[in-house]
């Protein structure tokens, strides 16, 4: 529930500055930046992601620590499942609407 997943901002959507592509251990997904609009992150920044929304900016070292915490808690797999599950974008990898949702 309170999983906070560290990811790195890869690019900001040119059409919508509140959408960004993040990289979470090699998996790229879109996240919503609406909760960081007072101090928007830029590509290269690390953020903690919670239910598809970037919640706070963190340092790279803290991102590594957070991923390690998730691994030791046995939550890393759930975290990656969650990230893969974000269907915030329609056109990635030919995903169809609803695909990736656990049936």
């Amino acid at each position, binding site marked *: 529930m309170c999983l906070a997943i560290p990811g790195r901002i890869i690019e900001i959507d040119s059409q919508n500055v509140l959408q960004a592509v993040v990289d979470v251990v090699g998996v790229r997904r879109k996240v*919503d930046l609406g*909760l960081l609009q007072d101090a928007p992150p830029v590509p290269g920044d690390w953020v903690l992601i919670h239910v598809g929304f970037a919640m706070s900016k963190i340092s790279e070292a803290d991102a590594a620590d957070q991923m390690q915490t998730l691994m030791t808690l046995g939550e890393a797999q759930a975290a990656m499942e969650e990230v893969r599950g974000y269907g915030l974008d329609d056109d990635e990898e030919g995903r169809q609407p609803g695909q990736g949702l656990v049936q």
Partner: protein
Amino acid sequence: MKFVDEFRGPELIRKANEEIRRLANPNRHYRIMEVCGGHTHAIYRFGLKDLLPENVELIHGPGCPVCVLPMGRIDDGLTLAARPDFIFAAFGDMMRVPGTHGSPLEYKARGMDVRIVYSPADALKLARNNPEKHVMFFAIGFETTAPSTALTLVRAKVEGLHNFSVFCNHVTIIPAIRAILDSPDMRLDGFVGPGHVSTVIGCRPYEWIAKDAGKPVVVSGFEPLDILQSVVMLLRQLEKGESKVENQYKRVVPWEGNNAALRAMAETFELRPYFEWRGLGFISQSALKIRSSYAQWDSEQRFTVPGVRVTDPKAAQCGEVLKGVLKPAQCKLFARECTPEQPVGALMVSSEGSCAAYYNYEHRKPVTITRAAAN
């Protein structure tokens, strides 16, 4: 990302542990509540209970959103979604939580259109992609998740997407702490404050706990070192006779919280006069409802909700465990009728629930069970 092989500072962990032993007065028993279910999970997983001296006891708090949700709300949500044109969307944590007539997953097996989503924004997308259906997002969570639901409501309104609504079960942490402090059978010395909730609300909302209730609060991160350092900070305050709010998790939690998140919540939510919590009963102003300006996207304002009240299964003692009065293993159903595979109560479902955490990490250690049972 580079993975570190070890946690930050094994040497620091040893030092923190020494400091705890030095600070803890042997003639005193300390009862410290970790409010957040994420901390509960970490404490069991890392075996921190075994590391602490016998007289420093960690009590598990109410900060597991799945666990505190009364069964009636699940029944209400599932009853609403039983209409043929409905899609019931919820986080995975909700899927195995038992309602009176089964969990959302069991309803799905009987033919209801139930979908797991990982983000409220995904539920909105489901609505966009299924214009002939109504998508109801069953929202749960404390202030960590509420802002994401809030922004999703804003987006639905801006977009004019009318086949989407939120069944809102968002709760707020401060009134729950107040209820626990008011509870006559609860004696606590201090609080390990929630980490990710505090990224949103900041540290100020805890100040009354320190000032009025006289209990120190330390907002903490989730690594073993974070939690141990927070215990050190609490013990230092207690030894000096102080009670203030401190922030151990400064690298993530700003003292003032996240203003954009708070604005989104203020735009879409208002406080309910009261809300029922499993184990804690009705707590005034402890939950969020959707403002009338967003009535169109509020399942409760838009549809007729049965308003079911269900008492928990008699033998299950979720309420006592939730309040920290009983240890999980002291419940009659623990590891017998109630297991993570076949949960009777919600505390056995979520990894943040103290019963599931206890079952997964302590239950297999007979020595610890004997000790807990003897408490």
